């Protein structure tokens, strides 16, 4: 049973209530009977770590996902959402992280799409523009009505999306991490618009994992953790320590006992010097050093640029400028994934289905995909040898399966991830770069992956571990670099390496 904190603001007249919302995915509980309500003109931030249930909550409000139990009320009346159009009909508008717009049409056409102003089925450009201007003016938002969407910056597209939502007599607007790819100026502009909306009486639900902006914007902060509402705080009275403590729960102050890490022999396995790339975010003179026998964590919220560093190391992004030193040798930055692999760099991509594995092919084929030359002679594959290698790695990584010949897609997520990891380890890389290696992996498999990589490091491997999960970052790293907006904002090690410190660094402008 979830304890509902007293709802601040106008309790008598709520705009939207969620009662006992529950959602399970397989055995995993994404939302555990949560209660939520928002009053007219209120700005509520929903915050939590990755996997806390924020996005599921937003998607239920949008009508895209149906809850397993519980219900929604608008103005006290129960409603049922079977599809996004139902949510729109009840005045709930959802702005997803991935915007859905028609890139080749103009701003005006996008604003009125689906509700074209017409007379007897005929619509004209003039009529569309007039309607679009009317909508934008009503909320005091300036837009170049005639511009093509594809020509706009992301922030402007987002505004178009918001205005489009508002055009539909919206009473509640739900934004899923809208600032993830905005600059701080653009974010400020967005907040300005959102405050204006709140003054008009619209309820704003704002999903985020950035503490500073939450305090900037919200009247109230709802903290989710593992599918439960664990706090419902008035923003003016709350502190960031308090919110972080709620986000992390009991784990917040836990100090992970680390063994004496003397295995690290001080040899530099990999060094990046002055890596620079203009983009989102800008990365300027990024530098790091990774030693043999070390797990170096690179932690930061999504969009902080840590994943770009990993992609750059894998040779997937070729516009980095800077220097690289690998095994004592200075060399240019990799221009292709082939080059990176040839230099002995193993890369575990974040999305195993899209980038890592060939799902329909057998486990054994996936395991040897990177080392085909070692299981073949003159281009002919030695299937006996291949199978023996696959079974050896199945045992090493404790991959649970019936046969190494079954397709990868028939394995559980955790076991798929182990296959992915194995396929990279098989080529015996000098440096292993992991990009979110345990995303979508169950707790048990996650612990096994952590343990295995720990042992690899203790045996002398050099591992760069990129993650946006604070718990994991603190758990696995010998040394932890915290990133924010394209730059390293702090280095933690020893007893100072706690989730609280990591999150504070990652979310505060100056810590």
């Amino acid at each position: 049973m979830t304890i509902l904190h007293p709802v601040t603001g106008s309790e008598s007249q709520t705009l939207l209530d969620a009662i006992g919302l529950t959602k399970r995915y397989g055995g995993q509980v994404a939302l555990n009977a949560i209660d939520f309500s928002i009053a007219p003109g209120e700005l509520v931030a929903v915050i939590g770590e990755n996997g806390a249930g924020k996005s599921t909550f937003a998607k239920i409000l949008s009508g895209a996902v149906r809850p397993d139990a519980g219900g929604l009320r608008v103005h006290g009346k129960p409603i049922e959402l079977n599809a996004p159009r139902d949510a729109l009909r009840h005045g709930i508008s959802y702005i997803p992280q991935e915007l859905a717009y028609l890139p080749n049409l103009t701003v005006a056409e996008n604003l009125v799409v689906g509700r074209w102003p017409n007379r007897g089925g005929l619509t004209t450009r003039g009529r569309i523009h007039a309607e679009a201007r009317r909508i934008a003016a009503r909320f005091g938002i300036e837009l170049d009505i005639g511009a093509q969407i594809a020509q706009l910056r992301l922030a402007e597209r987002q505004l178009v999306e918001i205005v489009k939502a508002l055009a539909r007599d919206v009473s509640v607007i739900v934004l899923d991490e809208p600032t993830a790819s905005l600059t701080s100026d653009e974010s400020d502009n967005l907040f300005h618009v959102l405050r204006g909306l709140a003054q008009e009486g619209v309820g704003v639900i704002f999903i985020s994992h950035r503490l500073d902006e939450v305090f900037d914007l919200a009247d109230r902060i709802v903290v989710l953790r593992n599918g439960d509402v664990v706090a419902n705080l008035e923003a003016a009275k709350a502190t960031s320590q308090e919110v972080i403590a709620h986000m992390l729960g009991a784990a917040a102050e836990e100090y992970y006992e680390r063994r004496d890490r003397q295995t690290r022999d001080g040899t530099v396995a990999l060094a990046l010097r002055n890596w620079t790339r203009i983009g989102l975010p800008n990365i300027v003179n990024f530098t790091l050093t990774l030693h043999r026998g070390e797990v170096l964590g690179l932690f930061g919220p999504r969009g902080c640029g840590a994943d770009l560093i990993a992609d750059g190391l894998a040779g997937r992004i070729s516009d980095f400028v800077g220097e690289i030193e690998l095994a004592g040798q200075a060399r240019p930055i990799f221009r292709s994934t082939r080059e990176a692999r040839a230099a002995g760099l193993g890369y575990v991509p974040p999305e195993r289905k899209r980038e890592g594995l060939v799902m329909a092919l057998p486990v054994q084929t996936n395991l040897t995909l990177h080392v085909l030359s070692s299981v073949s002679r003159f281009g002919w594959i030695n299937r006996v040898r291949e199978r023996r290698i696959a079974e050896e790695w199945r045992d090493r990584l404790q991959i649970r399966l019936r046969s190494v010949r079954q397709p990868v897609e028939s394995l559980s997520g955790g076991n798929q991830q182990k296959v992915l990891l194995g396929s990279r380890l098989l080529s015996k890389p000098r440096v292993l770069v992991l990009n979110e290696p345990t995303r979508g992996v169950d707790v048990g498999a996650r612990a096994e992956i952590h343990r295995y990589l720990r042992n690899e490091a203790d045996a002398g491997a050099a591992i760069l571990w990129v993650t946006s999960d604070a718990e994991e970052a603190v758990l696995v790293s010998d040394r932890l670099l915290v990133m924010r907006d394209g730059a390293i904002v702090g280095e933690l090690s020893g007893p100072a390496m706690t989730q609280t410190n990591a999150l504070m660094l990652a979310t505060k402008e100056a810590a």
Partner: protein
Amino acid sequence: MTGIEGSPSPKRVTKLRHALSPAAVLGQASHLLGIGGFYLAIIAYFAFAAPFFFTSTNAVNILSNVSVIGVVAIGQALVLIAGGFDLSVSGLVPLGGVTYTVAINDDLGIPEATAVAILGGVLVGILNGFIITKVGINPLVTTLGMLSITGGLAFTISDGVTIPLENVNAAPLGEEFAGMPLYVWTLITLSVIAFLVLRYTVYGRMLYALGGNREASRLAGMRVDLLTISVYAASGACAAFAGVMIVHQLLAGAPAVGGDAALESITAVILGGASLTGGAGGIPGTMIGVLIIGTIANGLALMQVPTFYQDIATGVLLLLAVTFGQLRVLFGRRTTRVLAGMTAGAGQARARWRRRSGTNS
């Protein structure tokens, strides 16, 4: 055989039960059986309905008739497995035939004339692959354009008429060996080679990986563009050589023959278990697919059904094959893609049955 390790958690038990359910087991092993059964049903039907169908002479007839499209289908299978498809074969078959005929009539030797024809096919294929990978135009538009170009070239070279082969001895593949024309043996040889390449070589493995997941293949260090170009080149070579085989049959280069190669070869490969998204399919299934098309055409002809009904039949087959593929995806636990596993490891079905009986007993 690998057993089941460790004590299964409750979650794993359900998973295993699901994986071992008849639907799943049959689904995975069934495609070749299913398509084979379908073929047997067709044979059974015509054996009763069509006069002179069930004779050895007619069997050789069917094989002779499918040998050209079979060779085209081998190349097409490589392309579909690697995640593309090739319409230009419909232009390359006549172009190959016309080129060969003109070359022979210009007093080139058989090997040289064959080489010239195949080289033309390879060049067109490389161009296809280059446009698709480097320019970034999709396979449909690219190969459709190339179809028009190559088909037009065939007519240009032949001045729009069928050119007789002046040297009748330049068609040795029409001779018989062990009761079958040599071009049937050619198809058999080529399909065995393609089967071995797909199943046992690094190259074959890379094609399945490429079609199954291009990005993962790129990250695995494969030259994905080069691989893509290579399958179009192979398909071009197969199509041009199929055109040469027609000349061996007709003793003439006909620019108007072979226009149905794209439709029939794609139908055959899809019937054989390939998916339009790539990563699946194989030569045994493709050959059964080719036989199904040829047998239906033959049976209908023996029943004196007008030939244009055969076109209708082929179109229906294609749509049925794709529909069944979709149904398998919807109901059969994504079994189309599992076919990749079957062709990549043909012992799988056997192993699965063994495993299954082992678990049940």
